[in-house]
């Protein structure tokens, strides 16, 4: 039995996930060291951080929609579309950058708004709604872009490759966006209300929260982070690419979010945990890479890790509800046995 006093409260989920990250780093480091390598060599650190940024962008937005008890399966397609919109608008000219970035954020935000509107107003299950919009975008991409298109000017390609010390710029930007999202969830009413909408939409409505507006905002922001991911893709490839969606980024993002302790059913979690979830997946990838383990083994491990993590969270959740006293318990067993019947 765990004591009720607040001082003895079990570790928070976010603390737990960072502890897990530290554990994965330590174990990974040890494994690589045994193999004769150094996980913390600059090249490996760069590799790790680079891996975090793309999934990171997507997972930040995904966290917001999942917190609202929604889902977005279209982000991979939105990212691919955004890379094309960005690259074609840049057209190799640095002067076009502001316009191109603006256009990407506008398009991706509008797609997010469409997702939110279909879910909120047409009452379509989020799974189906965003799967549908994803397919619509996929068809458009397949039809309109047979191959890479657009040209990213060298300046913007820096976004994909430059780094300060061992930290890639893209990772810095991603972390900045994550920090902004954390601030948004904590400090703004809309952000804070996402927990209420995902926790219990009726309670939220009873408290005067405009629930559809909150849901729409989450989807718009999720679309925009997918747009940012698209810009990063464009910067890395030097061109826009429709093929990007084949990598199932949306599933990676969802995996990182739930690994980070956000409840798939909404109302609980946060971006800090998601960043740790993204990092754990990236560390695993890098370890496998350094140890030259078959890249496909990482998918196997990744699948197992996600299931194990959610099973663990489910267990903690159950324990917590089970401990809730519902009624002043009748006197203890000793007394009951002591009474003549």
């Amino acid at each position, binding site marked *: 039995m765990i004591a009720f006093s607040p001082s003895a409260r079990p570790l928070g989920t976010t603390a737990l996930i960072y502890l897990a990250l530290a554990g994965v780093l330590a174990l990974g480091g040890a494994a690589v060291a045994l193999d004769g390598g150094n996980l913390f060599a600059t090249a490996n650190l760069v590799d790790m951080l680079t891996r975090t940024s793309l999934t990171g962008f997507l997972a930040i937005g995904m966290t917001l929609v999942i917190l609202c008890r929604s889902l977005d399966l279209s982000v991979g397609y939105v990212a691919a579309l955004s890379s094309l919109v960005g690259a074609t608008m840049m057209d190799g000219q640095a002067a076009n950058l502001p316009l191109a970035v603006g256009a990407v954020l506008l398009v991706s935000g509008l797609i997010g708004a469409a997702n939110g509107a279909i879910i909120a107003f047409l009452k379509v299950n989020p799974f*189906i709604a965003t799967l549908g919009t994803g397919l619509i975008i996929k*068809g458009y991409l397949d039809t309109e872009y047979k191959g890479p298109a657009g040209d990213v000017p060298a300046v913007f390609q820096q976004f994909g490759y430059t780094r300060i010390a061992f930290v890639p710029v893209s990772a810095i930007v991603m972390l900045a966006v994550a920090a902004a999202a954390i601030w948004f969830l904590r400090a703004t009413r809309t952000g804070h209300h996402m927990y209420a909408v995902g926790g219990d939409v009726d309670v939220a409505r009873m408290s005067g929260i405009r629930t559809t507006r909150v849901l729409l905002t989450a989807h718009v922001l999720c679309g925009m982070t997918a747009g940012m991911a698209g810009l990063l893709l464009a910067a890395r490839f030097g061109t826009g690419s429709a093929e990007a969606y084949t990598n199932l980024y949306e599933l990676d993002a969802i995996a990182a979010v739930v690994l980070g302790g956000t409840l798939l059913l909404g109302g609980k979690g946060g971006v800090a945990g998601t960043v740790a979830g993204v990092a754990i997946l990236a560390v695993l990838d890098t370890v496998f890479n350094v140890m030259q383990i078959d890249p496909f083994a990482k998918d196997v491990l990744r699948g197992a890790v996600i299931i194990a993590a*959610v099973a663990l969270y489910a267990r903690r959740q159950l324990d917590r509800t089970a401990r809730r006293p519902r009624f002043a318990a009748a006197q203890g067993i000793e007394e009951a046995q002591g009474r003549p019947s």
Partner: protein
Amino acid sequence: MTRVRAAAAALFGGGTGTVFALLVLIFAGIFAMNPGFFEGPSLMAFLKQAAPLVILAAGQYFVIVSGNFDLSVGALVGAQVVIAARLIDGEEPRTVPVLLVMLAFGLLVGLVNGLVTTVLKVQSFITTLGMLLVLYGAIRLWTGGAPTGALSESFRTAGRRGIENVPILGQIPWALLIMLAVGAGAILLMRTRFGRILMASGDNELAARLSGGRVDTVRTAAFVLSGLSATIAGVLIGGFAGVSAQVGEGLEFTVITAVVLGGVVLGGGRGAVLAAMAGALAIEALFTLFNQMALPATLRPTVQGAIIIAAVAYAARQRARPGATAAPATATATPS
């Protein structure tokens, strides 16, 4: 008239008639474009091609109606085809043993999905997403990236051949007969005690439990059935299309689309298996219609996406209408 309607409702599950109307509409479109489509051989060819998706839809139906998802079926179909090619490696006598191995593997994957979901209380979305990743990676790990080996001729019979030289029809494909058998089996299964408790578990888990229903057991069994359907579909697809690394990719979403198009509600408890299979047929017919219209194949997903959203929005509206106060507030909830 009412009796006919009652009989239809019993068969189609009531309220899911939309998909049959849609099917008729699409077929009418195809007929308008190409009357020759309904001649025996081309119709048979269509059904042969559609059979795997219809069979997968039946399997997915069991999982969805009990209140879960199975995202791992596409990866499982791919895995089965690769396993078959690698293990048979062109050796005719290995066909039957390998089929048994595949069967065991499919059932095992379903069992693991079911147990993780019901015993460990992991949402099925995550369970089967994890399974998707595991299968995808494990198969490529095993084969070193690209599928190796070859299928035997007898293995490919089910997906390719049929009863030949039938008057009018030409060939009656084995795939069609298997599809009909699976469909009949699925319909019958839903009429058994198992099927009824499965349906009740998806509709009101607590009521089913308090009536003595073994909710966890039937839900696990639904995943096993989904694994079985993916195995059968794998055999047919392997036989029909041969082996490639891409087999099965994205199939899970097409199947879920098909089932939902059939009026089956995500979250469970509503919809008929026949309608789910009709949904799969409608999607395949839609693809055929696109071909007839010489629509670029690349545009298919767009239309598919628009239709699925429209169909579900329409169904949501229909459900909200009778007795709006009684409408459950779970319309937008994500099933676990």
